[in-house]
């Protein structure tokens, strides 16, 4: 069953059906998450209202790291099993991963100014997250620079696999080094947040998850068409009104 959808020809219509479903889930979860975060969750006794940036900052930061891990998984599959769809998925995920990381840095800067007194500090968490953004840019630049698709996929997959070491560095940076950035907000089994705040953050995280899946599925459809344009099934598709 799963192997059937490893073929671009089978995955293309499936992605077309699934993408709107995930987009709808993202929209509903965003509405619920924002209601929970802005109406239900109380004002923080230390930071006041500005802490509410957490409901967008943490989900985008998580997605920035998570998308890179998913890309690394696809990179491994592309290199070891030479599956065409894996390289396409890697290519489809990168722009969204870069956007999520950039948004995490942006919202973090806007949260940092009122709480720390500065938009930016070269501490381990922030610097390693900036490096993640450069890894996304590097992958996309490399992918576009090499004309031969097979070579571009291989070089891109290698870069992604080498760069994956940065993800645990980001995650554990607040433990390994003395950083201005606070420690982990959500630790399995013992969260430091009030339940209403945690619920809002988790709902927003699932919303960002659903959004990223929807966008990646829409993007991969375009990539599939472009790369498979000379195959019979795409030619047939193009002949349809």
């Amino acid at each position, binding site marked *: 069953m799963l192997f059937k959808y490893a073929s671009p020809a089978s995955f293309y219509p499936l992605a077309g059906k699934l993408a709107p479903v995930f987009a709808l889930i993202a929209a509903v979860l965003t509405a619920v998450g924002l209601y929970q975060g802005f109406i239900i969750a109380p004002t923080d006794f230390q930071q006041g209202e500005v802490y509410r940036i957490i409901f967008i900052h943490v989900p985008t930061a998580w997605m920035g790291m998570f998308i890179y891990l998913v890309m690394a998984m696809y990179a491994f599959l592309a290199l070891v099993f030479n599956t065409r769809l894996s390289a396409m998925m890697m290519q489809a995920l990168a*722009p969204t991963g870069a*956007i999520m990381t950039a*948004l995490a840095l*942006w919202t973090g800067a806007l949260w940092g100014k009122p709480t720390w007194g500065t938009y930016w500090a070269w501490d381990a968490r922030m610097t390693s997250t900036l490096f993640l953004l450069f890894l996304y840019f590097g992958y996309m630049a490399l992918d576009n620079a090499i004309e031969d698709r097979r070579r571009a996929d291989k070089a891109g997959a290698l870069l992604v696999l080498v760069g994956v070491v940065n993800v645990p560095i980001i995650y554990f940076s607040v433990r390994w080094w003395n950083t201005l950035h606070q420690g982990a907000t959500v630790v399995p089994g013992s969260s430091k947040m009030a339940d209403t705040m945690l619920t809002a953050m988790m709902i927003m995280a699932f919303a960002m998850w659903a959004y990223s899946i929807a*966008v990646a599925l829409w993007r991969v459809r*375009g990539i599939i068409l472009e790369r498979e344009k000379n195959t019979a099934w795409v030619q047939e598709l193009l002949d349809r009104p």
Partner: protein
Amino acid sequence: MTDHEVFILGSYGVTAIVLALELLWLRLSAKRRLEALREARQMEGA
């Protein structure tokens, strides 16, 4: 508007704009790509 509200609006506003632009760009590029492929197909057939 308080300072805190400006920072919150800056975070959520920019996020909403960026994600909306990503969706719009995806839609437009998908449409353009399909048209270009169809045109190439017609040129081949002619």
